[in-house]
């Protein structure tokens, strides 16, 4: 079983886990993902790759508590194990030297655009990174992005740090001011990716988005991760996860992500009600958006 080297809280609802999976890491590339299962009764959940340490065989996953499985993940201690970590899955991000490329990371999406920014940089691009979160305390990886990007823009929705506003606002301004961006990679919550693609559409800048729909096996066998791109059905696990953002049907994606809303709430409530779980106080206070 894969060993968890460490698993630390880096934000109110955000954790960073490093897993020792040398054979997987040796093969993995930026933009791919893995599927993990925490324990024997656990579900299989896809996780973006947030970092690869090829020398030590370590995979970094950054995750946000959004339900039972992610809450359960926070209880795994450094030195412990998870049942499975399989991958690398999906097609690696397309990388070439376009001249100037921009990565946009919103919320938890700040994590997976980091290795992609590294890959863009290595290919010789000038890299502009725009990262944003709800507030200062939800922001992470600023230093990491700063080390890779030629130009880093940081923003928060509430204005508690950096530029006040959304990542899409920053991108809009850069493009309006004539930044020579030839390619955009945007990863984050679906509404953020949708807005970014609207902005880049206006300026006719090709834009990749990385989709993270629900999936089971991750090898094309179940078809649960089907997304509509340019009117065609694609499987995010084998055809993606990166797709042309201007062709993705975000409405269908948004709806499908809510397929198990009720079951998820039931499971989370039961989990939080269990006094034996060793959960961080912030996780204990967890509420679904729009509920108290």
């Amino acid at each position, binding site marked *: 079983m894969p060993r968890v080297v460490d698993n630390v809280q880096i934000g109110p609802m955000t954790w960073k886990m490093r897993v020792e999976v040398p*054979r997987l890491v040796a093969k993995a590339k930026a933009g791919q993902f893995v599927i993990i299962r925490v324990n024997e009764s656990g579900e299989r959940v896809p996780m973006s790759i947030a970092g690869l340490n090829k020398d030590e065989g370590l995979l970094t996953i950054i995750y946000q508590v959004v339900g039972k499985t992610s809450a359960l993940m926070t209880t795994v201690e450094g030195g412990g194990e998870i049942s*499975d970590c399989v991958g690398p899955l999906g097609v690696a991000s397309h990388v070439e030297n376009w001249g100037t490329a921009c990565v946009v990371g919103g919320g938890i999406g700040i994590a997976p655009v980091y290795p992609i920014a590294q890959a863009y940089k290595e290919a010789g691009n000038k890299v502009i990174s725009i990262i944003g979160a709800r507030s200062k305390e939800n922001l992470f990886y600023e230093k990491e992005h700063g080390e890779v990007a030629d130009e880093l823009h940081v923003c928060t929705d509430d204005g508690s740090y950096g530029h006040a506003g959304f990542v899409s606002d920053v991108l809009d301004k850069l493009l309006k001011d004539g930044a020579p961006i030839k390619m955009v990679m945007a990863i984050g919550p679906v509404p953020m990716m949708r807005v970014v693609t609207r902005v880049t559409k206006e300026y006719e800048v090709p834009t990749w988005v990385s989709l993270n729909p629900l999936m089971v*096996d991750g090898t094309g*066998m179940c*078809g649960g991760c*089907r997304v509509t791109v340019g009117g065609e059905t694609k499987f995010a696990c*084998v055809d993606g996860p990166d797709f042309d953002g201007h062709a993705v049907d975000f409405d269908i994606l948004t709806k499908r992500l*809510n397929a198990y809303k009720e079951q998820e709430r039931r499971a989370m409530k039961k989990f939080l009600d269990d006094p034996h779980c060793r959960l961080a106080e912030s996780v204990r206070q967890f509420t679904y958006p729009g509920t108290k």
Partner: protein
Amino acid sequence: MVQKIEKKERMKIQRAQMPEQAPEERVRNFNEVPHGLTEEQALSEAQRCLECKKAPCIDGCPVEVDIPAFINLILEKDYAAAARKIKETNSLPAVCGRVCPQEEQCEIKCVLAKKFKPVAIGHLERFVADYERENDLVQIPAVAPPTGKKVAIVGSGPAGLTVAGDLVKLGHEITIFEALHKPGGVLVYGIPEFRLPKNIVQAECDAMRDTGVTFENSTIVGKMDTIDELFEQGYDAVFIGTGAGLPNFMGIEGEQLIGIYSANEYLTRSNLMRAFDEEGYDTPIIRGTNVAVLGGGNTAMDAVRTSKRLGADHSYIVYRRSEAEMPARAEEIHHAMDEGIEFHMLTTPIKFIGDEEGRVKQMECLKMELGPPDDSGRRRPVPIEGSNFIMDVDLVVVAIGNSSNPLIQSTTPGLETNRWGNITVNPETMQTSRPGVYAGGDIVTGGATVILAAGAGKKAARAIHQYLTNGAKPE
């Protein structure tokens, strides 16, 4: 030893009826439906065998089980020896005794079948395999001295397990790579618990591990190591048994609605991930009140019977041809009918209709009639114009087959495929266009049965052994 009786007398014995859970009881649980023969029944059934010299039943078996010999061992009441007799050629008797379509293989060839009912070979196979396992009589088979040759098997379904079981006994070092977290392939993700309990598959895999087979689960060949890299790592031969990969959908409006599953997804959630046990496992599943399963094969039967057990009020089979054309085993269709499954024959959906949350709520269908036969020899269904009607459904399971998964083919240069993307092989040796690379099961044939996959595995094992021992390996 049971006293043998005259052949004329043997023909008078009635074929044993497998005891099973009553339909009204079993639709509320996931326990296995048939209980298995009692010892008394097995002995009576074994008496029916006429011990034909030519044994046509053996010709009907894709893995050439010596059927009269194992039945004779039942009459000697040495059930474990009977199980071992089967295992000489079939690594998975407890599985095959349950899921093989015996009625179109060994039993159809039984001489008794001409005038009476055939010997219940499948029931007897299951009886001895269960007896051996339940009484802890499973022995590690004798293994030949190590040959020093290494074989990689990609996929741990019935084809891969058969290759592994046969080759490990011949002294080769075997590693099975499995993409999922548990071995067994379709036996664990596809076939439901009520037809094939998962502890039986686990026991078969454990026995193989005890014989020396290494299992590497959660390892995707083509993503982790490619076939070429396996050779570089010192493997001398590779067998590809990756199964039927990508689920087919109808390609009609509304198919992205929530509550429309491929059969693969629905069954994987319930079987492998055990979503039917909401208290014990985390994977969710949509249960559905009015469930339509599209298709007429065994997978469709498995899905529709699962939906009933998950609490549906109405579970429908929606199939575009008539019952006569249904590819499912007669036994499965009868089990489904007994369980109150409603069959909508000569019906095809043309559109799914959703609510404001994007959940399926209705399905628009057309009635069909049968026209002249098509390429498959079955009468082609033709839509009846203006026959449109609406069905209320809150869960739809699409069970209309699979296409091949291109993962291995696309990462293995020189591996030839046919126009459907299935790997092409020499049908005698199962060798692919690449020397040392063999393939079998659904990745070669498209969706078929467990036993045909095992039969392909058997042929491949024989050819691989020859390849490894005759030094035919190109340097």
